């Protein structure tokens, strides 16, 4: 039974990793063929770093993820404090609205925002689809995740300390920044990282709300899959995979250090 279970686990992991392995191997293919392996080469990596479209969209993706995560973290953290103080029906209403972008399928969130933007472009003749609309849509789907990671941290907070600081003469805003924020910083950081990665990974919402001037990396990858095959995608994917692996390893090492301290709490 134990051996059977081991074989089973191995098969599932083989299933999960086989396509990634195939991609990595073919990123070093000297041929342009998708399946014929014609020897080792770094040709596609060189071409990748000379592809201005890809480099530009990578830059846009990173800027977008950073900005949207930052703004969403600020709005979301302040909102969490407000929601935390609420009781009863208003609290339930806020949490219900907060859950809409989380539970709705991406495509519905995407087209609903697209309608809003098109509505304003045609009716008010305001802005055009581009980085601005991308940023707004990313902030919108990021905020709920920040709230969901900050709110639980506030639950364990002793509100007396905040009031004590004010009793001792500290004005509300500095008291908030110096007393409350440090105590919930873990939730804020988690929310920020989550928002950042969600934004970086998003395709569907960007696809509907990007216009032609600002395309994110996933949108560029999608348009590459529709053109004739180029192993550049494999090279790009391999680099992204290595980056993600490095990031996860770092986070994991850091967390295993933390876990030792609080494993039984």
């Amino acid at each position, binding site marked *: 039974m134990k051996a059977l279970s081991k074989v089973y686990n191995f098969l599932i992991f083989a299933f999960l990793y086989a396509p990634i392995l195939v991609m990595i191997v073919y990123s070093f293919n000297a041929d342009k063929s998708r399946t014929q392996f014609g020897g080792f080469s770094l040709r596609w990596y060189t071409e990748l770093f000379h592809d201005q479209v890809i480099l530009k969209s990578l830059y846009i993706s990173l800027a977008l993820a950073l900005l949207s995560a930052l703004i969403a973290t600020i709005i979301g953290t302040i909102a969490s404090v407000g929601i935390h103080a609420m009781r009863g029906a208003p609290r339930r209403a806020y949490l219900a609205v907060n859950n809409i972008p989380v539970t709705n399928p991406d495509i519905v969130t995407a087209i609903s925002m697209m309608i809003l933007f098109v509505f304003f472009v045609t009716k008010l003749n305001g802005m055009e689809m581009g980085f601005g609309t991308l940023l707004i849509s990313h902030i919108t789907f990021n905020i709920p995740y920040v709230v969901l990671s900050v709110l639980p941290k506030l639950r364990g907070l002793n509100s007396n300390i905040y009031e004590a600081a004010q009793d001792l003469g500290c004005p509300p805003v500095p008291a908030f920044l110096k007393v409350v924020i440090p105590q919930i910083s873990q939730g804020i950081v988690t929310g920020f990282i989550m928002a950042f990665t969600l934004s970086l990974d998003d395709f569907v919402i960007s696809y509907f709300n990007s216009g032609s001037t600002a395309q994110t990396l996933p949108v560029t990858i999608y348009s590459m899959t529709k053109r004739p095959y180029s192993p550049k995608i494999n090279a790009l994917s391999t680099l992204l*995979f290595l980056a993600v692996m490095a990031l996860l390893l770092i986070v994991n090492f850091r967390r295993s250090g933390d876990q030792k301290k609080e494993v039984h709490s």
Partner: protein
Amino acid sequence: MHRKSLSRVAINAPYTVWMAIFVLVPIALVVYYAFTDAAGRFTLQNVASIVDYSHTFFTSLELALISTAICLVLAYPLAYAISRMHVKRQSTMIMLVMLPMWMNFLIRTYAWMTILEGNGLINRAVRALGGEGFHMINTNGAVVLGMVYNFLPYMILPIYTVLTKIEQSTIEAAQDLGANRVNIFRRVLLPMSVPGVISGITMVFVPAVSTFVISKLLGGGKTFLIGDIIENYFLGNTGTVDYNIGAALSLVLMILILISMAIMNHFDKDASAGGIM
């Protein structure tokens, strides 16, 4: 007291305004577009035209349900095996489950094209062994495979999370009381893992039923899902743009998912009311 409530309003203002404009208004616009025609007059035509797409809705539901079922069957044994491992090994295994999740799903789906296509790796291997080769890409089967591959980790993780909370001593107690493997699974593990199974099912079913990318890449335009139709009506890549019908279809999709989530939550309540305690 008055000052306190004022500052509360100030604290909530940015979030309230943002969510109202960018979450609630867009949803209201979807409803508005769904029930009006191009000239803005009230009509039920868009919602009624869903009958024309009942076949597509059915295909989407069918493929998403099949994928969800396969994910559940594949994920449960693995999640259980991981939950019974040594704590240190558990976190390594979970990281291995999560790693592919962090790759963009476009890339993960694209990778399967290389493996499945007519001249792809599987067929070349089969032919090298003297076989005939199969037609795999651009079929419903390929779309299901893509869904299972993409969403399997979303099933493994929540099931693992609930299973890891079940103490080994609980299982041993059942064994001591004479339960065999089947009974331990049916009467101890399964009832206790219902919340994880339910969130796994939701996390797989929702993206599967609403996808348009997996069907485009692995279905090759032969498998049309409801997501493909919605995409077409909004971006008009292969047809006419019609926000009104697109909005109506999105509205139906949204309601469909709300209903299935309500059903799932109902099961969850039944299970927890069913008296494990």
